[in-house]
């Protein structure tokens, strides 16, 4: 193997695939990055056996070949090199790098020993605009469970049906459901559970992606491939049954308040400062207005022996005056991702789920369970 590429491109590629390098693995080679010439470009790959990331770097390939080298060593070294051409030459198992007056040699491990990255050719194939996918992931993935007491909840349920891709995530206390449009309809209905971590990694790659993303689900529904312009992400799918979430979305409410999203977010953040010492509890009170005055939403928090605060924002309140308490984090999480200017909060009792949805957009619903408090 012998090739030349730009330091900037190599550093960028290593930065991207580096996210998939295993950190605590029993398989030492997964700490390495795979370098291989591929169709006139240099392909960088890394895997932690759950996800695999590949990135193609343009360059001048003089001789084909492949090797794996410690990812951290290579990345750290390349990052410090000047922005110029980098020559890479393989001699046996030793990789030589040269950039202007800097030079390094590092011992590699055979590319043959690198875990094979699954090739997913057939199966369900769907295309989606990069921006739409980015939006869908950002509205849903944060609601997935961080701990794996129930593995399916660490994933995002993705359902492909007709022209729709519906993403849903729940962690036992909240549920986020977002409906995105595919570029072309798919046949039948396919549901899979994608690790939320894999989607978060994917969404880091999406903003600079101008084109569409191709999604392929393996026929056995064990892996999914996201193909971007210069990058590919393959993820294992989570096996199991995702909760039937549609029945968790309240169909009616006794009180509905429409408020300014950023005001609501700000007031919640203010209350969350006091809520820090009170299990994160913020209390919401909805009061309807009269003919002359608008209704209001008050958001307060109190921590024993610390203090309390209260904030108030205008709200268009329909229905009975109500109160409900939430974990501040759950509110700020969802309010931070809603881009629409107004959001509707729909509640029924202090102990039944609250529903948030952006006003003027049908695609998103977010359900949050309240906290039981003594008022």
């Amino acid at each position, binding site marked *: 193997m012998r090739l030349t590429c730009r330091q900037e491109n190599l550093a960028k590629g290593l930065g991207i695939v580096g996210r998939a390098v295993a950190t605590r693995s029993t398989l030492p080679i997964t700490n390495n990055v795979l370098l291989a010439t591929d169709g006139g470009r240099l392909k960088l790959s890394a895997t932690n056996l759950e996800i695999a990331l590949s990135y193609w770097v343009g360059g001048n390939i003089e001789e084909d070949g492949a090797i794996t080298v410690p990812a951290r060593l290579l990345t750290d070294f390349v990052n410090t090199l000047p922005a110029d051409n980098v020559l890479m030459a393989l001699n046996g198992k030793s990789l030589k790098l040269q950039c202007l007056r800097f030079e390094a040699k590092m011992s590699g491990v055979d590319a043959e020993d690198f875990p094979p990255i699954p090739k997913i050719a057939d199966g369900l194939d769907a295309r989606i605009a990069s921006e739409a996918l980015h939006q869908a992931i950002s509205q849903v993935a944060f609601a997935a469970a961080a*701990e794996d*007491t*129930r593995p399916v*909840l660490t994933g995002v349920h993705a359902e492909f049906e007709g022209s729709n891709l519906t993403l849903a995530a*729940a962690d*036992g*206390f*909240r*549920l986020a459901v977002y409906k995105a449009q595919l570029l072309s309809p798919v046949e039948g209905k396919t549901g899979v559970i994608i690790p939320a971590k894999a989607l978060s990694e994917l969404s880091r790659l999406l903003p600079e992606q101008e084109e569409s993303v191709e999604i392929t689900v393996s026929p056995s529904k064990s892996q999914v491939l996201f193909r971007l312009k210069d990058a590919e992400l393959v993820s294992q799918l989570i096996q199991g049954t995702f*909760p039937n979430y549609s029945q*968790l979305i309240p169909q009616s409410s006794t009180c509905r308040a429409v408020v300014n999203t950023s005001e609501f977010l700000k007031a919640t953040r203010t209350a969350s400062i006091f809520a820090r010492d*009170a*299990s994160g*509890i913020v209390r919401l009170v909805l009061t309807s207005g009269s003919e002359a005055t608008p209704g209001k939403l008050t958001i307060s928090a109190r921590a024993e022996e610390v203090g309390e605060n209260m904030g108030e924002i205008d709200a268009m309140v329909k229905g009975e005056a109500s109160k409900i*308490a939430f*974990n501040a984090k759950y509110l700020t999480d969802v309010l931070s991702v809603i881009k629409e200017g107004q959001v509707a909060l729909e509640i029924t009792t202090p*102990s039944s*789920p609250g529903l948030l949805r952006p006003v003027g957009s049908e695609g998103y619903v977010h*359900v949050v*369970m*309240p*906290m*039981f*408090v*003594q008022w």
Partner: protein
Amino acid sequence: MGKFYHEAHHVAKLATLHPSHRHLDIDSGVGYNKNNSSMSDGVHMHRRILHVDLDAFFASVEQALDPSLEGKPVVVGGKPGGRGVVSSASYEARVFGIRSAMPLSRAYRLCPQAVFVDGHFSYYRIASQRFMSILDDYSPHVEPGGIDEAYVDLTGSEALFGPAHGVAQRIRERVWDELRITASVGLSTSKVVSKVASDLDKPDGLVEVMPGEEAAFLAPLPVRRLPGVGPKTEQVLKGVGVAAIGDLAALSPSYLCCLFGKTGALLGSWARGEDGSPVEERGEARSISRCATLSRDTLDRPFLLGMLRYLSEKVGAELRRMEKRARVVALKVRYADFETLTRQCRLRGPTDIDQLIFGAVAELLQRQLAGAAKLVRLVGVEVSGLQAEAQLRLLPSVEDRLERLDRALDGLRLRYGYDAVQTGRTLAVQRRAGVFS
């Protein structure tokens, strides 16, 4: 086979004797109790505060429940073969020199003919509730100082109930009529002085200290009588030639601060009979703990884990009774050489589930005993960071099932006793070592 452990019950309360902020109840308008301002606003009005203390409480309940024990020396704590200590001794037993916290074996040597009984804590709790509800009839300001004692603020109630002395007498009569337990009462202008007074003529006594005579009343008594003076403080005071409360009262606050830090000044004012702390309603429990002295020092993991399981269930049951959840779980270990340590961990979320409390404490034990060579004498489980608030769940989870299980067990045990249903772990401990109360 005897009872194999001594179970220490401890519900930590907000400090009862320390002056603390009084939360004004704005809704009810002017507070009933105006005593705090009586000094400053110039109104001449002395507080009338009772300290009511039930005599030999556990033993008295046992005697009330079983008339055949009446007049006999009764020792609550377990059978004399065990390693536990005396929880409570009737006055008939005290004649022989038996005292609380004395090892049972020693109590037996002092009085072999005494009746040794296991504790029936559920009965004590019921008796305590009935005791407190009697006090509630005479004042809205009742502050329990433990399961068997309370402060009652009678200030300003003369018009309604007559002089405080008479009320104290009536309370003692009612406690006897309704519970068959004698109560000793101290009556004065402050909590500290009343507490000392109630202890002075036990059992079945009533000691009143007139306004203005507090310091003179306390002065001749040994310092140990004063709340807050334990063996260590007593030792230090002895070292500086202070034996009587009056000597302590004469020391300057700055000197006392040197000796005891912040609490020094407080001790000094108490010694002078000055204590403005209000009688506050029941303090919120801040932690719950249960511990057990083992029948013999051991490093037997299954046995220790079984014991912790038992204690976790007791702590969990108490949490559920109080309708609280805990965020922090702590393990207490005392080794055979009496080295004692506490290790705590924060739970993922507040819980009242036995299994989660036990899981946390078991992990702490495993970590603590990794490579340990010293035998363990006592283990304890404590939960703190208590709260009533809870995050409700959207999806059914394992926790829901465990919560339902615990509540079902609570119901069964309330009717049929603890050992009506047990886990394998506690059953193994029980088989090996004796019975749980």
